[in-house]
């Protein structure tokens, strides 16, 4: 697997480069943005002396490149922060320290990751199931009643804002029918069963939004592979339609689905904020919105980098899966 190792190394190098570029952009945007960071961090009632103190403590007098250098150093080697009274060490990978709470960003994010992870992974599985299933059915049984119903449902799901779907689901299933408890996030490690029931509605809401896209993609991709010559070959050799669709057409059709879904899953880590807010899930998306509002630069940069990391990671995973599914793809 020499080629594979090389491929992996190249991917990692590329990912690091992308992430660094991303952090530069986020840094730059925030410093160009108007407003006095120290004033905001300190609060409106601070005296100019206090603001100056905060300014000093945050190291805002240092040139921009130096601040950024400290930041990068923290990621790879760790760094120290003055807490006013003493020195706090932040070990690598250190994403900095929140301006507002002095909490370390790495810890903050690590605390939120399982929450958003739970949401994204479950929703991901569901949207693939619903989307690919609908797509395959609608390509195979074009014009059937089931196909129309499913297509209509997924389309309706996508075109309805998550607030509406989520609220409807809560009202109907939790309030009127009382089939489900009101959604509430319980960590998996505390109680797996409650974790599952609490996340069921968020999963569905998020998955419905995504699934129509996948249904369409799978459908067109299926129609394409069903028209391919090798499908004709197996038809001419007496295979059943089920074997042709299930074994030969689907395998070719899922490749673009894999690629896109990996990208979506990665992005979802930072952008499931609506679902998180609606269902009261304390995830990364909500953290990001909160930090942007309070100009908590280190947290924003940390979250953006983390999200970026997942997108890049998901992409690399998709590439490998793609290559494993289709041996003609050379990893290069």
């Amino acid at each position, binding site marked *: 697997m020499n080629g594979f190792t090389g491929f992996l190394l190249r991917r990692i190098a590329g990912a690091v480069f992308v992430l660094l570029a991303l952090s530069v952009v986020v840094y730059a945007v925030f410093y160009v943005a108007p407003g006095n960071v120290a004033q905001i961090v300190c609060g409106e009632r601070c005296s100019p002396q206090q603001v100056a103190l905060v300014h000093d403590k945050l190291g805002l007098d240092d040139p921009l490149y130096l601040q950024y250098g400290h930041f990068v150093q923290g990621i790879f080697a760790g760094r120290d922060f003055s807490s006013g009274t003493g020195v706090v060490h932040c070990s690598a990978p250190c994403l900095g320290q929140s301006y507002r709470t002095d909490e370390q960003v790495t810890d903050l994010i690590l605390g939120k990751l399982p929450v958003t992870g739970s949401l994204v992974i479950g929703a991901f599985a569901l949207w693939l199931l619903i989307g690919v299933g609908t797509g395959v059915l609608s390509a195979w049984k074009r014009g059937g009643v089931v196909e129309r119903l499913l297509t209509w449902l997924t389309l309706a799901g996508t075109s309805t804002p998550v607030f509406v779907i989520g609220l409807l689901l809560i009202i109907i299933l939790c309030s009127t029918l009382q089939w489900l408890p009101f959604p509430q996030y319980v960590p998996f490690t505390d109680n797996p069963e409650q974790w599952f029931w609490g996340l069921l509605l968020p999963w569905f809401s998020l998955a419905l939004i995504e699934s129509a896209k996948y249904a369409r993609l799978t459908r067109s991709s299926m129609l394409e592979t069903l028209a*391919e*010559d*090798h499908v*004709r*070959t*197996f*038809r*001419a*050799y*007496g*295979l*059943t339609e089920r*074997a042709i669709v299930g*074994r*030969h057409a689907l*395998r*070719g059709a899922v490749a673009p689905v894999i690629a896109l879904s990996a990208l979506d899953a990665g992005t979802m880590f930072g952008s499931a904020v609506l679902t998180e807010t609606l269902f009261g899930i304390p995830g990364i998306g909500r953290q990001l919105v909160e930090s942007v509002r309070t100009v908590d630069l280190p947290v924003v940069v940390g979250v953006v980098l983390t999200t970026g990391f997942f997108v890049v990671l998901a992409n690399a995973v998709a590439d490998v899966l793609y290559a494993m*599914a*289709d*041996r*003609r793809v050379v990893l290069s």
Partner: protein
Amino acid sequence: MTPVPAGAPLVEVADLHVSFGDVRAVDGLSFTLEPGAALGVVGESGSGKSASAYALLGLHRGTGARVSGAIRVGGVDVVAASDAELRSLRGGLAAMVFQDPLSSLDPYYTIGDQIAEVYRVHKGGSRRAARARAITVLDRVGIPDAARKSRSRPHEFSGGMRQRALIAMALACEPRLLIADEPTTALDVTVQAQILDLLHDLRRDTGLGLLLVTHDVGVAAESVDEVLVMRAGREVERGPVGSVLASPRESYTKALLSAVPRLSPSPGTEAAGAPPRTPFAPERRSSSNAGRAEDAAEPSTDRATGPAWPAVAEGAEPSPARGAGNCATSHARSAAVPSPRRGSGRGGVGEEPAAGEGLVMEAVGLRKRFGRGRAAFDAVDGVDLHVRRGETLGIVGESGSGKTTLGRMLVGLLEPSAGRVTRTGDVQMVFQDPVSSLNPRRSIGESVADPLRAAGERDDTRIRARVAELLARVGLDPDRYDSYPHEFSGGQRQRVGIARALAAEPKLIVCDEPVSALDVTTQAQVTELLAELQRELGLALVFVAHDLAVVRQVSDRVAVMRQGRIVEEGEVDVVYGEPKDPYTRQLLAAVPSLDPALAAVRRAARREGAEAAVA
């Protein structure tokens, strides 16, 4: 398997109709095929030959095509059979081999698994037994080290190996009928010969009936006992292959046969004593009007065109008759136009150095490397060649020989890794696929005008006038500036491609497989057009092709390429008549002959050669 009454024909087709919407693809076809016999269905594109073959396996079911008539294959009534009966017929009693062996196999599964899957559908049994059967049939079709190769995926096989694998799949369940739809069209000529030999051996050894669908009369001559010529969904002529090819009764068959390019110089031409290519010598053309007059007085030298063409006209190529007419009239209209332009343009013909030494292109030490490091290979590996004014240089080679890469470097579409190309004057290119080399979303006039605009012409009236002139020049209706590519047939699109190449008034046009996507009759028209343009405009042509016969027909000199090198180069008559390089000899020996008796002799010779090579 369904028992077949003894003595009954293997295939019985009576009054078969297949229509797609309003198009009658097959229009009242009847034929029978006895067990173990071989029938060739020959026709041009759109003749309904493939639609007929597909109907034998009921493959039109569920596609929206309407099928009527009686089809019995091995005793199964295909039209009335249930889906399950049909499935057991397909691959069990009758198996099909398709044109493109790469796309006809599933890229995601190993060859062995695919064959095993087909075997288990019909015969059941364990996976292990099915895998063993797969290896047996792969071995039978001559795949070396079949057990190991059965674990490869299609893309790891060469074209010929893939077609062997597909034939192995066909053999897996011991069918009694093999339907081969253009089985060798996507293959190189030497590989084609091997596959045809394999089919021949299989028939001899297993008593397999063969229905061979092909556009290539030579392939049919090599492989079948009886031939059925189809046109517009109907039978034109049917009979023993020898007699149909040697003495066709119908005018269409005659026209079809006369359009097939031959390896040998046309006997008619030689008898008439007309030197085949010399009329295009440079000195004759320097006084262009005189040259044109002579050309007019001396119509096509190589092919019998004139009266035969109207008879050949068919749906796919709507107006060959009108096209030919246009060609003739457009001479008069456009004859005067190119010469003054050429004179006032970039150095007219007369300013060239002495005739004979008038090189329009010279390539020295040309090399093109693709890839890096260990994966690097030289697609073109040290090629020297030159093209003189007004001559045609044929570059012939099999796939992977580097001929296309070479052609692209000559035009300047690819930068050589080493060596240099010297061009005098503009060089243009005509591409293989007239469908994909034109932008479907732009009118053909816009496409033809591209080189004019690129040269700085801004005046729309002048552009339109010039494009109309060019369209007329290549035998198209000059008023079709605003038509889109899909409105044209394949041959017409290739004419558009040629018009586009002419727009820049090149000295040299490099044609990369310009006719390989076209039917033979259309092919003949396009090569005729090229020859005519050459006569009248003094163009030099580089004609890159895999088809040895076509290259012979159009070229003055020929270069034979193999693995990036030119193995032999010289005057066509010399290279084809007395080939010196063993590869050239091998290539020429592999070209199907139109004479079945000669084909049998050649097959025996190939077999001896193969055995000698093994020994």
